[in-house]
């Protein structure tokens, strides 16, 4: 069934008018046929999945055909803004969702800046894109009208030039009366590590969104016109003050994020000797990349729409530029150096010394920009052997212009460098490039080659899929720092922190800390107060960072909180548990959701919605072929121990890890294959596709360890049901094709005309082996 047929079925379940206060439309855009359609989601989507990430998953589940390749134009790319996006401080965010071309899992990436808020303010909650445009296209949205614009003049432009050209051609200013989601040359060339840019630095980074958008020949989505109706409804406005005060009153926000941004995290990981270095062969790196070394080049901070934090550190290395914002802000913050308090007093006193990247007094556009985040410092510092902050800044600015995900791109380069170090690849494969650790000139050049897919850049652009695309031999997989085919997002080596490790293994989009990071695992104040910690995570969690005990509670609670945060549009940094226990929580979100939508929500309900969102994501991953074996970690972390630092000798013990994972599955309500257990699966299926039939099996089958399975694609008779079973459980085909297994529907054996026997949603089907003998 093609996407247009699936869409027709879906649209029949949707509405022509809003179903609750403030609801925006879902805009379906057929790029191939240049048609649009506007509909509204049923109320039950809000009540069970909210909006943003959650509703995106609902849409994807109904529209995706799992057999198709991710870059097939019939696999949709979905933009979605959170329910509270643009209505609450720091709720600036939106997600893009699809099947990932980079990993083997869902594509789901989150970004802020101004685009998601403009989307909401122009009356849209979601935009569903499918079909390949005949020629490069710019989709222009403005207060409810849609226009397909020829994007030929913008083809080949990277991030900065693309925004400038749109501003010039449409006489507008980005972030004032225009917002733009766009791809760069890397997306056009379908580099799997490319993202979709939403500003000078903001990026929907993970999973290959740039390549996906490029496969549709969509260069950008422009929202034209300043946001209207800025005043929020009462009593929302008053409670926004409570939320805003909570955010800016939080220590880590006030003292670190507002002053220097996320690079403050480099020192704690360095001091702990948990900093992924040289593709995680080592775990400590030089203090030259501590955040205060960037002070001389930091002119100020920037931020997303309606955010009181402004955590985005800017950089300017050109002569005469302002500098010193946030200088010495981290000095004395002992919470920022848990394992060596003396480090809190260490300041490097670095002075400006940059004189152009070749030390020749020549400067260019890459000598200033926004960022870097801690992820970029880690991936383009220790991970590839770079130790100079000026080089990290410049690489950061190039990455932003090329629209490359710094996590996947940096990991892809680090992986190649280790393979080169080991002789698994040589200059024969690299086209003569010397992939020595820390070779700055090579790395800068390689980024541009990656965006163009030129020479060895074509291999880097294949990201974690380089082996299956024939670029590396099979043994290269032993050194790939990825889970579910997605490189690790965070530079943190998690052989010490076991909750962090569990989180990376079970995260639904692959190896990514933003789905469930248990940051507070090394927070001494929390570890010293067991009752407080137990209340935070709804269960007893060991105070020992390297213990496996109770870590499933922490990861489960974080997954719930963050999934809800993404679905209402809240920034992760300002959501309780990610950076602090005092930040806005589910109760705050429930209060504002109730005010905005007119639908009553309570905290417990939101917690369950968070679980629902991850549940439907696991059901999608199951359809993409992922099983419990894919909730794992890179081989290195099981087999190689740390060699330095306070936790030298630490690694992940496989038996302990599997036990922890099993406890996580039980707590979450998953079966032994990591999919929602039958009863929950049935509920989620009914809510999502409107159809659920439980089939009981004569014995546990591969993919169906509970001896039952839920069919949620609409079938009308037993013949179609049998096909659907094979579709759902291809690994159990041998058993399912067993002609001795008869069918009972709602307890009644089907004795004749089996194929045509009617099946309806809610039926219970049993496969019964015929008892032979005389």
């Amino acid at each position, binding site marked *: 069934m093609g996407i247009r047929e699936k869409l027709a079925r879906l649209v029949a379940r949707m509405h022509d008018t809003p179903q609750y206060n403030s609801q925006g439309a879902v805009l379906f855009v057929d790029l191939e046929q240049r048609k649009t359609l506007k509909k509204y989601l049923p109320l039950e989507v809000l009540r069970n999945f909210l909006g943003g990430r959650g509703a995106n998953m609902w849409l994807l589940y109904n529209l995706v055909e799992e057999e198709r390749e991710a870059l097939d134009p019939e696999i949709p790319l979905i933009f979605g803004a959170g329910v509270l996006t643009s209505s609450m*401080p*720091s709720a600036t965010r939106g997600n893009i969702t699809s099947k990932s071309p980079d990993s083997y899992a869902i594509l789901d990436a989150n970004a802020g800046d101004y685009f998601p808020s403009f989307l909401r303010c122009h009356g849209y909650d979601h935009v569903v894109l499918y079909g390949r445009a005949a020629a490069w296209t710019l989709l222009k949205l403005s207060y409810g009208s849609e226009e397909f614009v020829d994007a030929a003049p913008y083809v080949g432009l990277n991030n900065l030039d693309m925004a400038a050209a749109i501003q010039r051609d449409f006489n507008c*200013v980005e*972030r*004032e*009366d225009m917002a733009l989601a766009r791809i760069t040359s890397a997306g056009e060339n379908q580099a799997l590590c490319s993202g979709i840019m939403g500003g000078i630095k903001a990026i929907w980074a993970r999973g290959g969104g740039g390549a996906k958008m490029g496969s549709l020949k969509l260069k950008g989505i422009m929202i034209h016109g*300043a946001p209207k109706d*800025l*005043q*929020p409804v009462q009593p929302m*406005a*008053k409670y*926004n*003050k409570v939320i*805003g*005060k909570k*955010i*800016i009153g939080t220590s880590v926000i006030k003292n670190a994020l507002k002053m220097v941004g996320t690079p403050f995290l480099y020192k704690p990981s360095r001091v702990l000797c948990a900093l992924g270095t040289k593709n995680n062969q080592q775990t400590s790196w030089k203090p030259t990349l501590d955040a205060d070394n960037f002070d001389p080049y930091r002119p*100020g*901070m920037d*931020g997303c*729409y*309606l*955010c*009181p*934090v*402004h955590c985005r550190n800017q950089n300017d290395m050109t002569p005469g530029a302002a500098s010193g914002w946030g200088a010495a802000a981290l000095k004395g913050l002992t919470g920022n150096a848990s394992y060596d308090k003396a480090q809190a007093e260490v300041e490097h006193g670095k002075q400006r010394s940059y004189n152009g990247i070749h030390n020749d007094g020549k400067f260019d556009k890459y000598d200033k920009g926004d960022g870097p985040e801690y992820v970029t410092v880690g991936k383009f510092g220790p991970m590839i052997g770079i130790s100079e902050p000026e080089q990290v800044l410049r690489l950061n600015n190039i990455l932003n212009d090329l629209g490359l995900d710094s996590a996947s791109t940096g990991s892809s380069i680090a992986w190649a460098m280790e393979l080169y170090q080991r002789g698994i690849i040589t200059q024969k494969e690299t086209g003569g490039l010397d992939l020595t650790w820390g070779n700055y000139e090579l790395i800068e050049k390689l980024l541009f080659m990656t965006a163009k897919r030129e020479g060895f850049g074509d291999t880097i652009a294949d990201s974690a899929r380089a082996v299956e695309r024939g670029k590396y031999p099979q043994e290269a997989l032993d050194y790939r720092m990825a889970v579910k085919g997605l490189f690790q997002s965070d530079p943190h080596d998690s052989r010490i922190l076991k909750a962090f490790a569990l989180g990376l293994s079970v995260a639904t989009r692959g190896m990514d800390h933003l789905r469930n990071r248990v940051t507070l695992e090394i927070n001494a104040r929390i570890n010293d107060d067991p009752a407080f910690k137990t209340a935070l995570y709804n269960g007893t969690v060991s105070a020992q960072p390297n213990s496996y005990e109770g870590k499933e509670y922490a990861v489960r609670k974080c997954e719930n909180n963050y999934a809800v945060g993404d679905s209402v549009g809240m920034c992760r940094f300002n959501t309780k548990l990610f950076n602090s226990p005092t930040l806005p929580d589910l109760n705050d979100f429930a209060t504002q959701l109730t005010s905005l939508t007119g639908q009553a929500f309570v905290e417990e309900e939101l917690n369950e919605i968070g679980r629902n969102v991850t549940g439907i994501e696991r059901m999608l991953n199951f359809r993409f072929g992922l099983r419990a074996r894919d909730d794992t970690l890179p081989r290195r972390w099981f087999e190689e121990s740390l060699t330095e630092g306070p936790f030298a000798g630490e690694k992940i013990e496989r038996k302990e890890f599997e036990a922890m994972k099993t406890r996580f599955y039980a707590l979450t309500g998953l079966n032994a294959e990591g999919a929602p257990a039958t009863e929950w699966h049935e509920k989620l299926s009914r809510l999502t596709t409107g159809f659920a039939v439980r089939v009981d099996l004569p014995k546990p089958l591969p993919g169906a360890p509970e001896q039952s399975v839920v069919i949620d694609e609409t079938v009308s008779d037993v013949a179609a049901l049998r096909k659907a079973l094979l579709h759902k459980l291809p690994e159990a085909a041998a058993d399912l094709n067993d002609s001795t297994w008869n069918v009972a529907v709602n307890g009644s054996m089907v004795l004749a005309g089996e194929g045509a026997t009617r099946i309806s949603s809610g039926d219970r089907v049993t496969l019964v082996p015929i008892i032979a003998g005389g």
Partner: protein
Amino acid sequence: MALMINELCIACDVCLAACPNKAISAGEDIFTINPDLCTECVGHHAVSQCVKVCPVRACVPDPDHQESKDELQAKYERLKALKAA
């Protein structure tokens, strides 16, 4: 008219850096806008920057200082001349 900051202000300070006229200052509980210096960003931007960045939408028109766009433009020119002097 000039803009003012109402009681919803959380004193987060993001408006300080955004104001091109340096018309905003920190108050005891909330920030304040000097109406003599506020041009609603006329002369600088198409959109009032404090309105754009305020996370709680506390920057609103000041009913006690009503000015037309032409008056705001004239104020901008005066301030510019003063700065240059």
